[in-house]
């Protein structure tokens, strides 16, 4: 199905290309703007008309990782000369670095919770998907639908009792609590996607292995798992992206220790609500990994966003 319309006139193709490219370029502007704003000075970021050409500075990136205090010129003169380029940059704004900001720690939380929940959902999901794919399980279709339906719940609706439950169990604002929660949300996607991938592996492979003396479990581990690697990897990336982007639970159930980056980034805005370059720098650092993952996932994207309902 490579040439969908063999009789297409060449100008029709050119017009189509023109319109698609126009849409792509317009839709990418906000992302380019985030990236550029990260390298602007606060003054440049709020100038009118918006500046397309500016002298780049790392100020936004320094600001997102540090907290700074404003000092009097007299005090500034008493200081020894700046040791690093970022010290120098901050002092040129008559401020000194007071310490690291919380951004690094929030970012680390995103990584820990993201990878932790991804590992757990893919681990549990692979087991369940294999069982659903290969065995006769009573009420199989109902169970699969039940697993999917948990995804339809508005997060705020379950956030109330989860908030109460976590408060009782001491899981409120902990990494473990968030990992378990994100695993529960991701597992529906993991089971559905992985079942699709495992369904595609011919049963004959396992049967042959079992005739050769492998037990069921061994044939799962040594025959099915290696065959399912691509599917498992794609599923893992989808789970990771979900946990990485999740906002509602993180906003309502965490406040400090286990807070991830999404609810934190908007609070970077700083004094006067004008430090957009710092927000943009934080957003850029946060969004860039997803851009790479999207490109890596390109072939499986369709499957992932439809829970395996549409395959190419």
């Amino acid at each position, binding site marked *: 199905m490579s040439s969908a319309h063999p009789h297409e006139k060449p100008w029709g193709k050119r017009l189509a290309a023109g319109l698609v490219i126009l849409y792509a370029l317009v839709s990418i502007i906000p992302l380019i703007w985030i990236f550029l704003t990260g390298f602007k000075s606060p003054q440049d970021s709020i100038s009118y008309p918006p500046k397309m050409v500016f002298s780049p500075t790392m100020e936004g990136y320094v600001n997102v990782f540090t907290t700074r205090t404003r000092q009097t010129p007299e005090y500034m003169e008493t200081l020894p000369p700046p040791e690093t380029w970022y010290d120098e940059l901050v002092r040129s704004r008559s401020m000194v670095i007071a310490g690291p900001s919380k951004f690094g720690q929030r970012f680390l939380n995103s990584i820990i919770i993201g990878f932790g929940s991804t590992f757990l959902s893919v681990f549990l999901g692979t087991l369940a998907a294999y069982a659903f794919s290969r065995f006769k399980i009573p009420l199989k279709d109902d169970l699969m639908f039940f697993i999917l339906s*948990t995804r*339809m*719940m508005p997060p705020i609706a379950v956030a109330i009792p989860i908030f109460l439950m976590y408060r009782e169990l001491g899981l409120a604002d902990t990494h473990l609590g968030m990992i378990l929660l994100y695993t529960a949300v991701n597992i529906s996607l993991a089971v559905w996607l992985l079942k699709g991938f495992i369904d595609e592996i011919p049963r004959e492979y396992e049967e042959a292995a079992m005739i050769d003396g492998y037990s069921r479990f061994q044939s799962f581990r040594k025959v099915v798992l290696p065959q399912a690697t691509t599917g498992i990897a794609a599923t893992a990336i989808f789970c990771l992206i979900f946990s990485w982007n999740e906002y509602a639970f993180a906003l309502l159930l965490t406040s400090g220790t286990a807070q991830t980056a999404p609810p934190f980034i908007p609070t970077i805005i700083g004094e006067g609500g004008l430090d957009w370059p710092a927000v943009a720098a934080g957003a850029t650092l946060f969004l860039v990994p997803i851009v790479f993952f999207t490109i890596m996932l390109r072939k499986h994207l369709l499957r992932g966003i439809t829970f395996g309902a549409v395959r190419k």
Partner: protein
Amino acid sequence: MSRPSILQKIASSAAVATPAPVARQVRGLSDRAIAWLFVTPTILLLLAINIFPLIWTIQLSFTNYKANRAARGEKFIGLRNYERVLGDADIWISLQTTAHFLIWTMLLQVLLGFGLAWLLNKQFKGHSFWTTLILLPMMLSPAVVGNFWRFLYQPQIGLFNYIIAFFTGADPSSFQMLGDVNLAPWSIVIVDTWMWTPYIMLICLAGLRSIPDYIYEAAEVDRASKWRQFWSITVPMVLPFLMLAVLFRAIENFKMFDLVVELTNGGPGSVTELASINLKREAFEKWRTGYSSAFAIILFVTVFGVANIYVKALNAVKQR
């Protein structure tokens, strides 16, 4: 499906012939044991973190419990919370806001998404690169993106206002996308459409690619016009895909929270206060736990019910 009987026969005959411990080793766990061993952890996790909280929400919805005054205890008040929710004008306004958001985002995204997919399906040179570029917005964090769009929408300095002003000649500080009660509902529609049009596009594209060439060739032989071909081949064959895409997006947009919270936080006033945002205010700002639980249940039942009806319609279309 249990494994072929030959294997079981081999296994069981081996079991008879060999002493018990060895037999256990040879056979390993039975298929049935493995099936339950593999499925149970997932089900338990979902029961603990999804179903148990849901049941708790149902229970709370019949009480006057307030989570910030736990010591006060809770009293069973029957269906009064449900009566209050359904009689609350604010709730109905937030549902109207949600309906407006849902209808316009779906309409715009279906038109744009299908249009783009149709153009992309002409397979011009480099279409794969441009597809990937178009897909980027939907993978990003809605909260972070929503927060950044607030910057683009700034009346004086924002890029959005500047571009609109550039093309229309209006003064860029003469309109406020987020501050104006008439424009704010559209500002969230615009960002959601920007973010999720690629979703509809990608699924429609799969639908278009699933149509075999020979159907068009047969139509050419019958001298059906392009217009005829479009309406009697392309549209009906893409429809199941399109409906699936709309189903997924509509469920997500009915629950919409993150993007809009960071973009407008329901404001100005409450003109962009979607159902989820209203629910969050009731539950986590006013701490009316019982009341908000009732509202949460009503929302969940609505999504679930509508989704079920829609799935039936989808199957009907597929079978045609």
